[in-house]
């Protein structure tokens, strides 16, 4: 039922436009679409924040190991610091 709602427009004719309301697929299950994208957004924020935290920690350790002064002198070859 859910799948058929999402995958079907529910419309097979445009001949009487005054009676036509929503034209998108998924009428009646908008709540489900909203939940899916809400979870996707929240997951993205959490993933981004965690992965950035790990990456910053890794970079800071790397710069300490290589020597910060050396990294800053190596301005023209910054790509070698990756």
């Amino acid at each position, binding site marked *: 039922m859910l799948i058929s709602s999402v995958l079907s427009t529910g419309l097979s004719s445009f001949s009487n436009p005054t*009676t036509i*309301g929503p034209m998108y697929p998924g*009428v009646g299950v*908008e709540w489900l*679409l*909203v939940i899916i994208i809400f979870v996707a957004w929240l997951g993205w924020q959490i993933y981004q924040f965690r992965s*950035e935290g790990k990456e910053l920690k890794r970079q800071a350790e790397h710069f300490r190991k290589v020597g*910060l002064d050396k990294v800053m002198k190596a301005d*023209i070859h910054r790509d070698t610091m*990756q």
Partner: protein
Amino acid sequence: MSSLPDALNVIFTEAYYWITVVMMFLIHVGFCTYEVGVARRKNAMTVVMKNTMLIPLVTVTFFFFGWWVYFAFSNVPFNGGFIDAPFALPWGELMGGPHMGGGADANAPIWARLNGVFWAAFLLFSWTTASIISGAVMERIRTGAFFMFAVLVGSFTWILDASWGWNPAGWMVQLMGYHDAYASGVVHAIAGGSALGILLVLGPRIGKFGPKGEVRTILPHNPWLVTIGLFLIFTGFWGFYAACNIPIFDIDSTDGVFYSATNIYLMPTTLSGITFNFILSLSGGLMAAYIVSKGDPFWTYSGGLCGIISASAGNDLYHPVIAFGVGGAGAAFAYVLHGFVERRFKIDDPVGAVAVHGYGGFFGTVVAGFILWGYPAANPTSEGVAWFATAEGQPMINPLGNIIGAIIMFWVLGFIPCYALARVLKRFNMLRVPREVELAGFDTAKYGDPYPYFPHVETEFDQIEREHAKDKH
């Protein structure tokens, strides 16, 4: 729509807002260009990505709750309760894309055509508020922390203030007679106040202030790109002004019919009039900033922007010469205050966002209350609630309403929420990048040099930073 005049009105309005959205995209292009130009070479790509990714994040959250907040909160907490706004709920049919207007909802024929374009126009304002903050906090904030501020301001606090003070039914308009036609306070003061709240907790970039508190100059990596960015913002600002109007509306409150453009409060203005005022306030800002900054390109361009922002609260009704004067005064005020705050409180705002948007917006909101004292602010939604009313019973624009309004925008909804969130993030060490990464550069390990074919010339500030790099703390 079965009548041609109705169809022309609605579909013209739909097309009008659609075009404003396209124009307002240029504001964001301008902010990206401007900000990347101000950034140092070692941070350029991170700055671009930070400013780019706020677009989808503010967009999805504005879809989830921002648009609903605008309609639902206009009477909260002082003029009633929540207002039902089914067309703004994310699961509502009228938020669902293509819709022909049929169905049980009597407003469906109009909202089916206008909901998406209205939503997008407000969304572009949301991007702007978030992007204003982006420049102020660059080169030391964690990107993920910035995204949280972007969502907080872009999808909640600014649209809450718009619901209160930028909506004909908003309680600030109905009770206080608050007037802010082109968002000096509603968009700019709140963004500037938010940025200041974050900056106080975030602190300056390493080396910005010397051991005796002297202010050091950190050169932009590309000064002319900064000016192009500001030019693009000027251009996009036209779309912003247009989007703040209703293009066709019957303004005759008697039985007659008289169509006009209106401001956001459904009070009459003309596109012709605001065109005068937009350009004159830009000119006033440019001329004043050129003088006070002694021809500094960065501050001259920023002064032009600040001129528009300062006059925006009243540019629906000002004489062009008044717009010119207010724009010039606002730009000079913001420039002088920026210098004072930077020296006195050691606030490091690389793009002058707090000054241009915050001080300029606050100034413009307050000034409009005096200059437009006595004009009707909006039609009353209920009798006798306005603190000051016109002879016909409409809430009246007045200095007190706009002074309190400016304080609400800058301090209550701008500064306080962002200061609080910044304190929480700092408490958990989530606000600022590690010292090593800040000194080495955000791009150094992640993106590499954005100009691989051009040698780097060491500046005086690079040497200062290298001295800091030797410190072990």
